[in-house]
Protein backbone atom coordinates (compact mmCIF):
# COMPACT_ATOMS: atom_id res chain seq x y z
CA UNK A 1 0.00 0.00 0.00
CA UNK A 2 2.69 2.46 0.99
CA UNK A 3 4.56 1.52 -2.15
CA UNK A 4 1.84 2.92 -4.39
CA UNK A 5 1.97 6.30 -2.61
CA UNK A 6 5.73 6.32 -3.06
CA UNK A 7 5.12 5.60 -6.75
CA UNK A 8 2.71 8.52 -7.02
CA UNK A 9 5.26 10.76 -5.35
CA UNK A 10 8.04 9.66 -7.70
CA UNK A 11 5.88 10.08 -10.78
CA UNK A 12 4.87 13.63 -9.88
CA UNK A 13 8.43 14.48 -8.87
CA UNK A 14 9.80 13.38 -12.22
CA UNK A 15 6.94 15.02 -14.06
CA UNK A 16 7.65 18.37 -12.45
CA UNK A 17 11.35 18.12 -13.32
CA UNK A 18 10.34 18.23 -17.00
CA UNK A 19 9.28 21.86 -16.69
CA UNK A 20 12.81 23.29 -16.80
CA UNK A 21 11.98 26.25 -19.02
CA UNK A 22 9.20 27.22 -16.70
CA UNK A 23 11.65 27.06 -13.80
CA UNK A 24 14.12 29.32 -15.60
CA UNK A 25 11.55 32.02 -16.30
CA UNK A 26 10.39 31.54 -12.71
CA UNK A 27 13.92 32.20 -11.46
CA UNK A 28 14.09 35.42 -13.49
CA UNK A 29 10.80 36.62 -12.05
CA UNK A 30 11.76 35.67 -8.51
CA UNK A 31 15.06 37.44 -8.89
CA UNK A 32 13.54 40.67 -10.09
CA UNK A 33 10.96 40.46 -7.32
CA UNK A 34 13.66 40.01 -4.74
CA UNK A 35 15.49 43.15 -5.89
CA UNK A 36 12.25 45.12 -5.87
CA UNK A 37 11.37 44.09 -2.32
CA UNK A 38 14.85 44.68 -0.94
CA UNK A 39 14.97 48.22 -2.33
CA UNK A 40 11.52 48.84 -0.90
CA UNK A 41 12.27 47.60 2.62
CA UNK A 42 15.69 49.24 2.67
CA UNK A 43 13.83 52.53 2.20
CA UNK A 44 11.50 51.69 5.10
CA UNK A 45 14.25 50.42 7.40
CA UNK A 46 16.48 53.41 6.69
CA UNK A 47 13.72 55.71 7.93
CA UNK A 48 12.88 53.63 11.03
CA UNK A 49 15.13 50.71 12.10
CA UNK A 50 13.46 47.62 13.56
CA UNK A 51 14.95 45.78 16.53
CA UNK A 52 16.51 42.42 15.63
CA UNK A 53 15.90 42.80 11.90
CA UNK A 54 18.79 44.63 10.28
CA UNK A 55 19.02 45.43 6.57
CA UNK A 56 21.36 42.50 5.93
CA UNK A 57 18.99 40.14 7.78
CA UNK A 58 16.09 41.53 5.79
CA UNK A 59 17.91 40.97 2.46
CA UNK A 60 18.72 37.40 3.48
CA UNK A 61 15.10 36.78 4.49
CA UNK A 62 13.86 38.14 1.16
CA UNK A 63 16.27 36.01 -0.90
CA UNK A 64 15.35 32.87 1.03
CA UNK A 65 11.72 33.75 0.38
CA UNK A 66 12.35 34.09 -3.33
CA UNK A 67 14.48 30.94 -3.51
CA UNK A 68 11.78 28.87 -1.80
CA UNK A 69 8.81 30.63 -3.34
CA UNK A 70 7.54 27.48 -5.06
CA UNK A 71 7.24 25.82 -1.67
CA UNK A 72 5.83 28.68 0.39
CA UNK A 73 3.15 29.73 -2.10
CA UNK A 74 0.00 27.64 -1.75
CA UNK A 75 -1.12 26.04 -5.00
CA UNK A 76 -3.66 23.44 -5.89
CA UNK A 77 -2.07 20.13 -6.90
CA UNK A 78 -1.93 20.02 -10.71
CA UNK A 79 -4.89 18.30 -12.40
CA UNK A 80 -6.67 17.63 -9.07
CA UNK A 81 -8.78 20.76 -9.45
CA UNK A 82 -9.63 19.92 -13.07
CA UNK A 83 -10.55 16.39 -12.08
CA UNK A 84 -12.93 17.57 -9.40
CA UNK A 85 -14.63 20.11 -11.67
CA UNK A 86 -14.93 17.84 -14.72
CA UNK A 87 -15.93 14.79 -12.71
CA UNK A 88 -12.94 12.57 -13.50
CA UNK A 89 -12.39 12.35 -9.77
CA UNK A 90 -14.98 9.58 -9.74
CA UNK A 91 -12.49 7.22 -11.39
CA UNK A 92 -10.41 7.55 -8.25
CA UNK A 93 -13.28 6.22 -6.15
CA UNK A 94 -12.86 2.74 -7.56
CA UNK A 95 -9.14 2.65 -6.86
CA UNK A 96 -8.12 1.06 -3.56
CA UNK A 97 -6.25 4.21 -2.46
CA UNK A 98 -7.03 6.79 0.14
CA UNK A 99 -7.68 9.94 -1.88
CA UNK A 100 -6.27 12.32 0.71
CA UNK A 101 -2.96 10.43 0.80
CA UNK A 102 -3.00 10.20 -2.97
CA UNK A 103 -3.33 13.96 -3.47
CA UNK A 104 -0.97 14.70 -0.62
CA UNK A 105 1.78 12.63 -2.25
CA UNK A 106 1.10 14.13 -5.67
CA UNK A 107 1.36 17.66 -4.39
CA UNK A 108 4.38 16.85 -2.25
CA UNK A 109 6.21 15.45 -5.27
CA UNK A 110 5.39 18.51 -7.36
CA UNK A 111 6.36 20.94 -4.62
CA UNK A 112 9.68 19.31 -3.79
CA UNK A 113 10.71 19.06 -7.45
CA UNK A 114 9.66 22.65 -8.19
CA UNK A 115 11.62 23.87 -5.17
CA UNK A 116 14.75 21.86 -5.97
CA UNK A 117 14.78 23.21 -9.53
CA UNK A 118 14.64 26.82 -8.39
CA UNK A 119 16.38 27.43 -5.10
CA UNK A 120 20.09 26.63 -5.73
CA UNK A 121 20.58 29.16 -8.54
CA UNK A 122 18.82 32.01 -6.74
CA UNK A 123 20.82 31.43 -3.56
CA UNK A 124 24.15 31.19 -5.37
CA UNK A 125 23.55 34.45 -7.24
CA UNK A 126 22.21 36.20 -4.14
CA UNK A 127 25.31 35.28 -2.11
CA UNK A 128 27.52 37.24 -4.52
CA UNK A 129 25.46 40.39 -4.91
CA UNK A 130 26.98 43.73 -3.92
CA UNK A 131 26.11 46.04 -1.02
CA UNK A 132 22.70 45.96 0.60
CA UNK A 133 21.46 43.32 -1.84
CA UNK A 134 23.75 40.58 -0.56
CA UNK A 135 22.41 37.42 1.05
CA UNK A 136 24.39 36.32 4.11
CA UNK A 137 25.46 32.89 5.37
CA UNK A 138 23.51 31.30 8.28
CA UNK A 139 24.49 32.44 11.79
CA UNK A 140 25.93 28.99 12.61
CA UNK A 141 25.83 25.32 11.63
CA UNK A 142 23.12 24.40 14.16
CA UNK A 143 20.94 27.16 12.77
CA UNK A 144 21.48 25.85 9.25
CA UNK A 145 20.49 22.32 10.29
CA UNK A 146 17.36 23.62 12.05
CA UNK A 147 16.56 25.69 8.95
CA UNK A 148 16.70 22.59 6.76
CA UNK A 149 14.47 20.72 9.21
CA UNK A 150 12.11 23.69 9.25
CA UNK A 151 11.92 23.81 5.46
CA UNK A 152 11.08 20.10 5.27
CA UNK A 153 8.34 20.67 7.84
CA UNK A 154 7.27 23.76 5.85
CA UNK A 155 6.82 21.84 2.60
CA UNK A 156 4.61 19.31 4.39
CA UNK A 157 2.59 22.10 6.02
CA UNK A 158 2.24 23.89 2.69
CA UNK A 159 0.80 20.73 1.15
CA UNK A 160 -1.47 20.10 4.15
CA UNK A 161 -2.85 23.65 3.85
CA UNK A 162 -3.37 23.32 0.12
CA UNK A 163 -5.67 20.37 0.82
CA UNK A 164 -8.14 22.90 2.21
CA UNK A 165 -8.22 24.45 -1.27
CA UNK A 166 -9.05 21.01 -2.63
CA UNK A 167 -11.89 20.75 -0.12
CA UNK A 168 -13.19 24.20 -1.11
CA UNK A 169 -13.10 23.16 -4.76
CA UNK A 170 -15.48 20.34 -3.91
CA UNK A 171 -17.82 22.84 -2.29
CA UNK A 172 -17.60 25.66 -4.87
CA UNK A 173 -16.51 23.86 -8.06
CA UNK A 174 -14.21 26.78 -8.73
CA UNK A 175 -10.60 25.71 -8.41
CA UNK A 176 -9.17 29.12 -9.25
CA UNK A 177 -11.25 30.89 -6.63
CA UNK A 178 -10.62 28.25 -3.96
CA UNK A 179 -6.86 28.28 -4.47
CA UNK A 180 -6.88 32.08 -4.39
CA UNK A 181 -8.69 32.25 -1.04
CA UNK A 182 -6.32 29.85 0.70
CA UNK A 183 -3.22 31.36 -0.93
CA UNK A 184 -4.22 34.91 0.05
CA UNK A 185 -4.81 34.10 3.70
CA UNK A 186 -1.65 32.03 3.90
CA UNK A 187 0.32 34.71 2.03
CA UNK A 188 -0.67 37.47 4.41
CA UNK A 189 -0.23 35.45 7.61
CA UNK A 190 2.80 33.54 6.31
CA UNK A 191 4.99 36.49 5.45
CA UNK A 192 4.75 36.50 1.65
CA UNK A 193 2.89 39.83 1.38
CA UNK A 194 5.24 41.51 3.85
CA UNK A 195 7.94 39.81 5.95
CA UNK A 196 6.49 39.01 9.37
CA UNK A 197 9.39 40.59 11.32
CA UNK A 198 8.32 43.95 9.83
CA UNK A 199 4.87 43.68 11.40
CA UNK A 200 4.05 45.37 14.72
CA UNK A 201 4.95 43.21 17.72
CA UNK A 202 1.36 42.94 18.99
CA UNK A 203 0.28 41.41 15.70
CA UNK A 204 3.29 39.11 15.58
CA UNK A 205 2.41 37.73 19.01
CA UNK A 206 -0.73 36.24 17.45
CA UNK A 207 0.56 35.35 13.98
CA UNK A 208 3.59 33.55 15.38
CA UNK A 209 1.36 30.77 16.70
CA UNK A 210 -0.83 30.34 13.61
CA UNK A 211 0.11 27.50 11.24
CA UNK A 212 0.95 29.70 8.23
CA UNK A 213 4.13 31.20 9.63
CA UNK A 214 5.65 27.73 10.12
CA UNK A 215 5.75 27.18 6.34
CA UNK A 216 8.67 29.48 5.68
CA UNK A 217 8.88 32.35 8.16
CA UNK A 218 10.19 30.17 11.01
CA UNK A 219 13.08 28.48 9.12
CA UNK A 220 14.10 31.81 7.55
CA UNK A 221 14.20 33.53 10.92
CA UNK A 222 16.26 30.75 12.43
CA UNK A 223 18.67 31.11 9.50
CA UNK A 224 19.16 34.85 9.99
CA UNK A 225 19.43 34.50 13.77
CA UNK A 226 16.25 36.43 14.50
CA UNK A 227 15.05 33.37 16.45
CA UNK A 228 17.54 31.54 18.69
CA UNK A 229 18.21 27.80 18.72
CA UNK A 230 16.18 26.82 21.81
CA UNK A 231 13.27 29.05 20.84
CA UNK A 232 13.52 27.63 17.33
CA UNK A 233 13.29 24.07 18.65
CA UNK A 234 10.16 24.89 20.66
CA UNK A 235 8.56 26.51 17.61
CA UNK A 236 9.47 23.52 15.42
CA UNK A 237 7.60 21.37 17.93
CA UNK A 238 4.54 23.62 17.63
CA UNK A 239 4.86 23.39 13.84
CA UNK A 240 4.83 19.60 13.93
CA UNK A 241 1.77 19.68 16.18
CA UNK A 242 0.02 21.97 13.67
CA UNK A 243 0.96 19.62 10.82
CA UNK A 244 -0.67 16.68 12.60
CA UNK A 245 -3.78 18.71 13.45
CA UNK A 246 -4.13 20.06 9.90
CA UNK A 247 -3.74 16.62 8.35
CA UNK A 248 -6.42 15.19 10.65
CA UNK A 249 -8.84 18.05 9.93
CA UNK A 250 -8.04 17.87 6.22
CA UNK A 251 -8.72 14.15 6.12
CA UNK A 252 -12.05 14.56 7.88
CA UNK A 253 -13.11 17.37 5.54
CA UNK A 254 -12.14 15.50 2.37
CA UNK A 255 -13.95 12.42 3.70
CA UNK A 256 -17.13 14.40 4.27
CA UNK A 257 -16.80 16.07 0.84
CA UNK A 258 -16.41 12.71 -0.87
CA UNK A 259 -19.44 11.32 0.96
CA UNK A 260 -21.59 14.13 -0.39
CA UNK A 261 -20.23 13.98 -3.92
CA UNK A 262 -22.91 13.38 -6.49
CA UNK A 263 -21.75 11.86 -9.75
CA UNK A 264 -23.97 13.05 -12.54
CA UNK A 265 -23.11 10.30 -14.96
CA UNK A 266 -22.02 10.92 -18.53
Amino acid sequence: MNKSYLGIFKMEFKGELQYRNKAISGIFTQFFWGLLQIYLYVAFLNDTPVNGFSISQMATYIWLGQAFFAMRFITMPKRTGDNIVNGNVSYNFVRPLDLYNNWFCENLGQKIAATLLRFPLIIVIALFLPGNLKMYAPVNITALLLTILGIILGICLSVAISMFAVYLTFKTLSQKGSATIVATISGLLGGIVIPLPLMPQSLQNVINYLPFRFISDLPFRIYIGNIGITEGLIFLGIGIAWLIVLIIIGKLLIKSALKNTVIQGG
Partner: protein
Amino acid sequence: MLYNKFLKMHIKTSMQYRFNTLFIGITQVLVNIGEVLGVWILFSQFTSVKGYGFYECLLMMGIVFTVFSFAECFARGYDEFHMLIKSGEFDRMLIRPVNIHYQILGSKIELTKLARMALGIALVIIALVNLNIDWSFLKILVLISSFICGITTITGLFIISATISIFTIEQFEFVNIFTNGAKETAYYPINIYAKWMTKIFTYVIPVACFNYLPLSYLLEIGNVPMWLCAISPLIGIVFIVPCIIIFNLCLKKYKSTGT
Protein backbone atom coordinates in the same frame (compact mmCIF):
# COMPACT_ATOMS: atom_id res chain seq x y z
CA MET B 1 -22.38 48.45 -33.17
CA LEU B 2 -20.42 45.24 -33.33
CA TYR B 3 -18.67 45.84 -30.02
CA ASN B 4 -22.01 45.98 -28.22
CA LYS B 5 -22.77 42.54 -29.59
CA PHE B 6 -19.43 41.23 -28.35
CA LEU B 7 -20.11 42.76 -24.95
CA LYS B 8 -23.59 41.26 -24.73
CA MET B 9 -22.21 37.86 -25.68
CA HIS B 10 -19.60 37.99 -22.93
CA ILE B 11 -22.15 39.14 -20.36
CA LYS B 12 -24.41 36.26 -21.34
CA THR B 13 -21.64 33.65 -21.11
CA SER B 14 -20.53 34.82 -17.70
CA MET B 15 -24.14 34.85 -16.50
CA GLN B 16 -24.38 31.18 -17.45
CA TYR B 17 -22.02 30.47 -14.59
CA ARG B 18 -23.30 33.15 -12.28
CA PHE B 19 -21.93 31.71 -9.05
CA ASN B 20 -18.53 31.07 -10.58
CA THR B 21 -18.26 34.59 -12.01
CA LEU B 22 -19.22 36.14 -8.71
CA PHE B 23 -16.99 33.83 -6.68
CA ILE B 24 -13.92 34.47 -8.83
CA GLY B 25 -14.63 38.21 -8.77
CA ILE B 26 -14.83 38.20 -4.97
CA THR B 27 -11.70 36.12 -4.51
CA GLN B 28 -9.75 38.45 -6.79
CA VAL B 29 -10.86 41.38 -4.67
CA LEU B 30 -9.70 39.39 -1.63
CA VAL B 31 -6.17 39.21 -3.05
CA ASN B 32 -6.07 42.98 -3.37
CA ILE B 33 -7.55 43.48 0.07
CA GLY B 34 -4.74 41.26 1.34
CA GLU B 35 -2.24 43.58 -0.32
CA VAL B 36 -3.92 46.68 1.11
CA LEU B 37 -3.85 45.07 4.56
CA GLY B 38 -0.17 44.37 4.10
CA VAL B 39 0.56 48.00 3.27
CA TRP B 40 -1.62 49.15 6.18
CA ILE B 41 0.25 46.89 8.60
CA LEU B 42 3.55 48.13 7.21
CA PHE B 43 2.56 51.74 7.76
CA SER B 44 1.30 51.05 11.27
CA GLN B 45 4.90 50.05 11.99
CA PHE B 46 6.77 52.66 9.94
CA THR B 47 4.32 55.60 9.48
CA SER B 48 6.10 57.03 6.42
CA VAL B 49 8.56 56.34 3.64
CA LYS B 50 10.25 59.19 1.76
CA GLY B 51 7.51 61.55 2.88
CA TYR B 52 4.73 59.25 1.72
CA GLY B 53 2.22 58.02 4.27
CA PHE B 54 -0.47 55.33 4.16
CA TYR B 55 -3.11 57.36 2.33
CA GLU B 56 -0.69 58.53 -0.37
CA CYS B 57 0.20 54.90 -1.03
CA LEU B 58 -3.46 53.92 -0.84
CA LEU B 59 -4.25 56.45 -3.56
CA MET B 60 -1.51 54.96 -5.74
CA MET B 61 -2.78 51.43 -5.11
CA GLY B 62 -6.32 52.53 -5.91
CA ILE B 63 -5.24 54.00 -9.24
CA VAL B 64 -3.20 50.90 -10.08
CA PHE B 65 -6.05 48.50 -9.22
CA THR B 66 -8.52 50.55 -11.25
CA VAL B 67 -6.45 50.91 -14.41
CA PHE B 68 -5.10 47.37 -14.23
CA SER B 69 -8.48 45.77 -13.86
CA PHE B 70 -9.91 48.01 -16.57
CA ALA B 71 -7.20 46.87 -18.98
CA GLU B 72 -7.57 43.25 -17.84
CA CYS B 73 -11.30 43.43 -18.37
CA PHE B 74 -11.42 45.05 -21.79
CA ALA B 75 -7.98 44.38 -23.32
CA ARG B 76 -7.61 40.80 -22.08
CA GLY B 77 -7.60 39.66 -25.74
CA TYR B 78 -4.02 40.90 -26.13
CA ASP B 79 -2.94 39.32 -22.87
CA GLU B 80 -4.27 35.93 -23.98
CA PHE B 81 -3.31 36.40 -27.61
CA HIS B 82 -1.26 33.19 -27.62
CA MET B 83 -4.48 31.27 -27.02
CA LEU B 84 -6.01 32.82 -30.14
CA ILE B 85 -2.99 31.80 -32.20
CA LYS B 86 -2.84 28.29 -30.78
CA SER B 87 -6.49 27.54 -31.32
CA GLY B 88 -6.42 28.87 -34.88
CA GLU B 89 -9.09 31.43 -34.00
CA PHE B 90 -6.71 34.20 -35.05
CA ASP B 91 -6.48 32.83 -38.62
CA ARG B 92 -10.23 33.09 -38.83
CA MET B 93 -10.09 36.67 -37.60
CA LEU B 94 -7.61 37.60 -40.31
CA ILE B 95 -9.99 36.70 -43.12
CA ARG B 96 -12.85 38.72 -41.67
CA PRO B 97 -13.37 42.22 -43.11
CA VAL B 98 -13.18 43.87 -39.68
CA ASN B 99 -10.20 45.66 -38.12
CA ILE B 100 -8.01 43.11 -36.34
CA HIS B 101 -7.58 45.15 -33.13
CA TYR B 102 -11.32 45.53 -32.89
CA GLN B 103 -11.71 41.77 -33.06
CA ILE B 104 -8.95 41.07 -30.53
CA LEU B 105 -10.52 43.50 -28.08
CA GLY B 106 -13.87 41.80 -28.60
CA SER B 107 -12.50 38.27 -28.29
CA LYS B 108 -12.32 38.39 -24.52
CA ILE B 109 -14.03 40.65 -22.04
CA GLU B 110 -13.47 39.49 -18.50
CA LEU B 111 -16.28 40.82 -16.40
CA THR B 112 -14.99 39.32 -13.16
CA LYS B 113 -12.40 42.12 -13.15
CA LEU B 114 -15.14 44.69 -12.59
CA ALA B 115 -15.20 43.72 -8.91
CA ARG B 116 -11.55 44.62 -8.60
CA MET B 117 -12.17 47.88 -10.44
CA ALA B 118 -14.87 48.77 -7.92
CA LEU B 119 -12.41 48.17 -5.10
CA GLY B 120 -9.83 50.37 -6.84
CA ILE B 121 -12.28 53.23 -7.20
CA ALA B 122 -13.37 52.83 -3.57
CA LEU B 123 -9.74 53.02 -2.43
CA VAL B 124 -9.15 56.15 -4.51
CA ILE B 125 -12.18 57.80 -2.90
CA ILE B 126 -11.13 56.77 0.63
CA ALA B 127 -7.64 58.11 0.01
CA LEU B 128 -8.83 61.40 -1.50
CA VAL B 129 -11.18 62.02 1.41
CA ASN B 130 -8.34 61.51 3.90
CA LEU B 131 -5.71 63.51 2.04
CA ASN B 132 -5.62 67.26 2.23
CA ILE B 133 -5.61 68.28 -1.40
CA ASP B 134 -6.02 71.86 -2.54
CA TRP B 135 -8.34 71.12 -5.45
CA SER B 136 -8.25 73.10 -8.65
CA PHE B 137 -9.74 72.48 -12.07
CA LEU B 138 -6.32 71.57 -13.44
CA LYS B 139 -5.77 69.02 -10.68
CA ILE B 140 -8.98 67.24 -11.55
CA LEU B 141 -7.86 67.11 -15.18
CA VAL B 142 -4.49 65.70 -14.14
CA LEU B 143 -6.17 62.99 -12.03
CA ILE B 144 -8.47 61.98 -14.88
CA SER B 145 -5.64 61.96 -17.42
CA SER B 146 -3.54 59.78 -15.13
CA PHE B 147 -6.30 57.15 -15.15
CA ILE B 148 -6.33 57.25 -18.95
CA CYS B 149 -2.55 57.08 -19.05
CA GLY B 150 -2.61 54.04 -16.75
CA ILE B 151 -5.08 52.20 -18.94
CA THR B 152 -3.11 52.89 -22.12
CA THR B 153 0.18 51.92 -20.50
CA ILE B 154 -1.07 48.56 -19.24
CA THR B 155 -2.84 47.89 -22.55
CA GLY B 156 0.43 48.75 -24.31
CA LEU B 157 2.23 46.14 -22.20
CA PHE B 158 -0.41 43.55 -23.12
CA ILE B 159 0.08 44.45 -26.81
CA ILE B 160 3.83 43.92 -26.48
CA SER B 161 3.20 40.56 -24.84
CA ALA B 162 0.89 39.70 -27.78
CA THR B 163 3.54 40.85 -30.27
CA ILE B 164 6.11 38.51 -28.75
CA SER B 165 3.71 35.57 -28.86
CA ILE B 166 3.38 36.07 -32.65
CA PHE B 167 6.88 34.57 -32.80
CA THR B 168 6.96 32.33 -29.74
CA ILE B 169 3.33 31.08 -29.88
CA GLU B 170 3.65 30.30 -26.18
CA GLN B 171 3.13 33.17 -23.77
CA PHE B 172 6.55 34.58 -23.03
CA GLU B 173 6.55 34.65 -19.24
CA PHE B 174 9.39 37.10 -19.03
CA VAL B 175 6.96 39.87 -19.99
CA ASN B 176 5.12 39.21 -16.73
CA ILE B 177 8.05 40.80 -14.92
CA PHE B 178 7.16 44.04 -16.60
CA THR B 179 3.39 43.86 -16.27
CA ASN B 180 3.39 42.63 -12.68
CA GLY B 181 6.51 44.61 -11.88
CA ALA B 182 4.79 47.73 -13.16
CA LYS B 183 1.91 46.97 -10.83
CA GLU B 184 3.96 46.29 -7.74
CA THR B 185 6.38 49.22 -8.18
CA ALA B 186 3.42 51.51 -8.54
CA TYR B 187 2.22 50.94 -4.94
CA TYR B 188 5.04 53.03 -3.49
CA PRO B 189 6.81 56.27 -4.54
CA ILE B 190 8.95 55.24 -7.47
CA ASN B 191 12.09 57.02 -6.22
CA ILE B 192 12.61 54.53 -3.38
CA TYR B 193 13.86 51.94 -5.87
CA ALA B 194 17.33 51.79 -7.43
CA LYS B 195 18.10 54.42 -10.09
CA TRP B 196 18.02 51.95 -12.98
CA MET B 197 14.63 50.62 -11.90
CA THR B 198 13.21 54.09 -11.55
CA LYS B 199 14.47 54.91 -15.03
CA ILE B 200 12.94 51.80 -16.57
CA PHE B 201 9.60 52.48 -14.93
CA THR B 202 9.63 56.13 -15.93
CA TYR B 203 11.20 56.40 -19.37
CA VAL B 204 10.73 52.93 -20.86
CA ILE B 205 7.43 51.92 -19.30
CA PRO B 206 5.70 55.12 -18.15
CA VAL B 207 4.45 53.78 -14.81
CA ALA B 208 5.54 56.92 -12.98
CA CYS B 209 3.44 58.96 -15.41
CA PHE B 210 0.19 57.59 -14.01
CA ASN B 211 0.91 57.58 -10.33
CA TYR B 212 4.04 59.08 -8.84
CA LEU B 213 4.37 62.18 -11.03
CA PRO B 214 0.71 63.24 -11.21
CA LEU B 215 0.44 62.55 -7.48
CA SER B 216 3.39 64.82 -6.80
CA TYR B 217 1.42 67.49 -8.60
CA LEU B 218 -1.79 66.80 -6.65
CA LEU B 219 -0.02 66.80 -3.29
CA GLU B 220 2.50 69.48 -4.27
CA ILE B 221 5.50 67.47 -3.01
CA GLY B 222 8.71 66.07 -4.52
CA ASN B 223 11.46 67.79 -6.45
CA VAL B 224 10.33 67.27 -10.04
CA PRO B 225 9.18 70.56 -11.68
CA MET B 226 5.41 70.92 -11.17
CA TRP B 227 4.57 71.68 -14.81
CA LEU B 228 6.34 68.45 -15.84
CA CYS B 229 4.36 66.46 -13.25
CA ALA B 230 1.15 67.99 -14.55
CA ILE B 231 1.68 67.03 -18.17
CA SER B 232 3.37 63.66 -17.44
CA PRO B 233 0.20 61.61 -17.96
CA LEU B 234 -0.22 63.14 -21.40
CA ILE B 235 3.33 62.12 -22.27
CA GLY B 236 2.71 58.63 -20.89
CA ILE B 237 -0.33 58.10 -23.08
CA VAL B 238 1.94 58.23 -26.15
CA PHE B 239 3.50 54.90 -25.01
CA ILE B 240 0.72 52.89 -26.61
CA VAL B 241 1.41 54.30 -30.12
CA PRO B 242 4.75 52.53 -30.75
CA CYS B 243 3.25 49.38 -29.18
CA ILE B 244 0.49 49.30 -31.78
CA ILE B 245 2.89 50.16 -34.61
CA ILE B 246 5.28 47.35 -33.62
CA PHE B 247 2.37 44.92 -33.32
CA ASN B 248 1.15 45.82 -36.82
CA LEU B 249 4.65 45.47 -38.28
CA CYS B 250 5.21 42.08 -36.64
CA LEU B 251 1.82 40.91 -37.81
CA LYS B 252 3.18 40.88 -41.36
CA LYS B 253 5.62 38.14 -40.26
CA TYR B 254 2.83 36.03 -38.75
CA LYS B 255 2.81 32.37 -39.67
CA SER B 256 -0.20 30.29 -38.85
CA THR B 257 0.26 27.31 -36.55
CA GLY B 258 -1.86 25.28 -38.91
CA THR B 259 -4.51 24.43 -36.34
